[in-house]
């Protein structure tokens, strides 16, 4: 591996090598006649770098990066499943990738969105979708704004929303951006929402409803889900479903049937589109019939003959992103859904739950599992039984030494030193067995050789980094 750690900007030469611009074929005018000198820049500090240097530079960087294609990526609530290669091929078909968002001959793209909409309605039990939101949190904001609009049109002042502590991490910040204040509800000892506290919270005149993740971030299914949505509805509230954890429910049960009014999905989690190192994603929002008028403008909505393009609706929350969303991501998700079909989707749900329980049962022999229950797609361990003052972070760093990625750590906040583990359905038994072996071995090391773990990782290009220094004296560019 290349040990050259120089930044790309240090690999430039003094004369240009590359030629990525068509040959100029009209006469040049003096540029100063087109734009005043005072508006022109003097220098541009991006060096001219030969193509081979650029390719080698980034190839080397890729080799210092861990992806799903490297090995298991057990980040809880992130659903790091395999990203099928055919989807990349399809998304890059020039008839998709070169399509301009404002051009008229776009029937293939619109049909794709319509068909995707139909499938997602079937999968979730909802009646219509918008694809504008670019990510899960963006979908949350969209859904919450729809709730806000709904009550505004009824002239009701509902500016608070219930967010259980076991809900997805972005929920409180999304609620704030939509102008809601937050009512927190603690989980009970089973990791579920206490019905009495929910009723008490719904007593407030200004409560618009609840944001719920089910299965929640503890990986547990809310057994009282039907009561929960009924209570909220009885008090005149609405139920919002955060689809971050939809994967284990595929083909088994549907948020629409649980009583949810508005939901969002993460195509980059459940429907296999690549996470890309943090994005792009797509966070479509699905609604029950009566909320279709509130979907963002423009939108593709169901009608008697199927679906239609709707430019404008009076009660719409308005636009939430330019154009029609992250279309390239929609193409991949659509291809995935077609490849799987009804049976495949159910198998995804089932095997994701099988894999998670297979890990949980074996790991909780050594590690502390605060909720001793059958989990769904993920489960949470705590730092409670760790010997010799070993921390969750120490464990995570040592996992990396074994050539695999660490789980989500220190989230959810309700579990001390949480390790949140989601293997997904695409990990084989052999891969899971390896993960169990590594985790058990690390536990043994924690007992016998704690220093080894406290100083981990040892086998990486760099050792543990100073996060305090990074935040005190931020260096954000070269």
């Amino acid at each position, binding site marked *: 591996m290349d040990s050259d750690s120089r930044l790309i900007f240090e690999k430039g030469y003094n004369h240009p090598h590359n030629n990525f611009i068509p040959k100029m074929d009209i006469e040049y005018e003096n540029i100063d006649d087109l734009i005043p000198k005072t508006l022109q820049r003097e220098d541009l500090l991006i060096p001219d770098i030969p193509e081979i240097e650029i390719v080698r530079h980034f190839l080397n960087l890729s080799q210092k990066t861990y992806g799903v294609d490297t090995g298991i990526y057990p980040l809880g609530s992130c659903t790091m499943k395999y990203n099928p290669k055919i989807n990349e091929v399809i998304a890059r078909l020039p008839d998709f990738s070169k399509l301009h968002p404002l051009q008229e001959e776009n029937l293939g793209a619109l049909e794709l969105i319509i068909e995707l909409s139909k499938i997602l309605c079937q999968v979730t039990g909802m009646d219509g979708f918008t694809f504008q939101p670019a990510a899960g949190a963006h979908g949350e904001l969209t859904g919450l704004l729809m709730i806000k609009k709904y009550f505004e049109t009824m002239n009701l002042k509902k500016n608070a929303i219930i967010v259980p502590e076991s809900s997805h991490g972005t929920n409180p910040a999304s609620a704030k951006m939509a102008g809601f204040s937050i009512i927190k509800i603690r989980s009970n000892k089973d990791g579920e929402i206490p019905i009495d506290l929910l009723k008490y919270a719904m007593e407030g005149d200004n409560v618009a409803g609840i944001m719920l993740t089910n299965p929640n971030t503890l990986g547990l299914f809310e057994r009282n889900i039907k009561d929960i949505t009924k209570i909220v509805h009885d008090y005149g509230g609405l139920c919002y479903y955060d689809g971050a954890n939809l994967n284990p429910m595929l083909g088994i049960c549907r948020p629409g049937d649980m009583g949810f009014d508005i939901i969002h999905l993460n195509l980059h989690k459940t429907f296999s589109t690549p996470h890309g190192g943090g994005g792009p994603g797509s966070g479509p929002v699905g609604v029950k019939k009566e909320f279709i008028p509130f979907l963002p403008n423009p939108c593709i909505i169901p009608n008697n003959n199927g679906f239609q393009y709707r430019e404008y609706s009076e009660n719409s929350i308005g636009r939430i992103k330019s154009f029609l969303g992250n279309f390239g991501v929609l193409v991949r998700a659509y291809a995935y859904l077609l490849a799987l079909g009804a049976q495949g989707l159910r198998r995804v749900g089932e095997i994701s739950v099988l894999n998670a329980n297979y890990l949980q049962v074996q790991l909780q022999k050594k590690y502390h599992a605060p909720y001793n229950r059958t989990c769904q797609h993920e489960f949470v361990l705590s730092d409670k039984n760790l010997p010799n003052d070993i921390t969750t972070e120490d464990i995570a760093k040592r996992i990396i030494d074994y050539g695999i990625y660490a789980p989500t750590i220190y989230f959810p906040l309700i579990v001390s030193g949480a390790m949140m583990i989601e293997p997904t359905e695409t990990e084989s038994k052999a891969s899971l067995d390896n993960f169990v072996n590594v985790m058990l071995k690390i536990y043994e090391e924690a007992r016998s050789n704690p220093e080894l773990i406290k100083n981990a990782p040892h086998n990486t290009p760099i050792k543990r980094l100073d996060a*305090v220094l990074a935040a*005190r004296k931020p260096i954000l560019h070269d």
Partner: protein
Amino acid sequence: MDFKVPPDLKYTKSHEWVRLENEIAVMGITDYAQNQLSDVVYVELPKIGEIFEKGSIIGEIESVKAVDEFYMPLSGEIIELNDYLGNRPELVNSSPYDEGWFLKIKINNPSELDIFLTAFQYQELIQGEENQ
């Protein structure tokens, strides 16, 4: 854990301390608060000359794992800031009551000080929080 709670200072429930020097109040955050935050990386202070009511949010303390707001302990005008915190926010951790002070306030109404906690009361407060 044991946290320093100097007996000559006044305390708030939001973990600020105040030292009164005639009409001037000096404020900072307590040893317990800095410990809860862990390594402080940045303190956002108000500007000199700004006037606030008691209880207004006047700044933020950022650590690696949290950002907390702090509040105006007494109504008045900001008259001096601890300029060292800009380059050395770690002073809040190493010396919360001394070198890590935040700012000075010219106070309007000394009687506001009556409802502050004594060192003894504050000690009880943090013990309560610790036990939770």
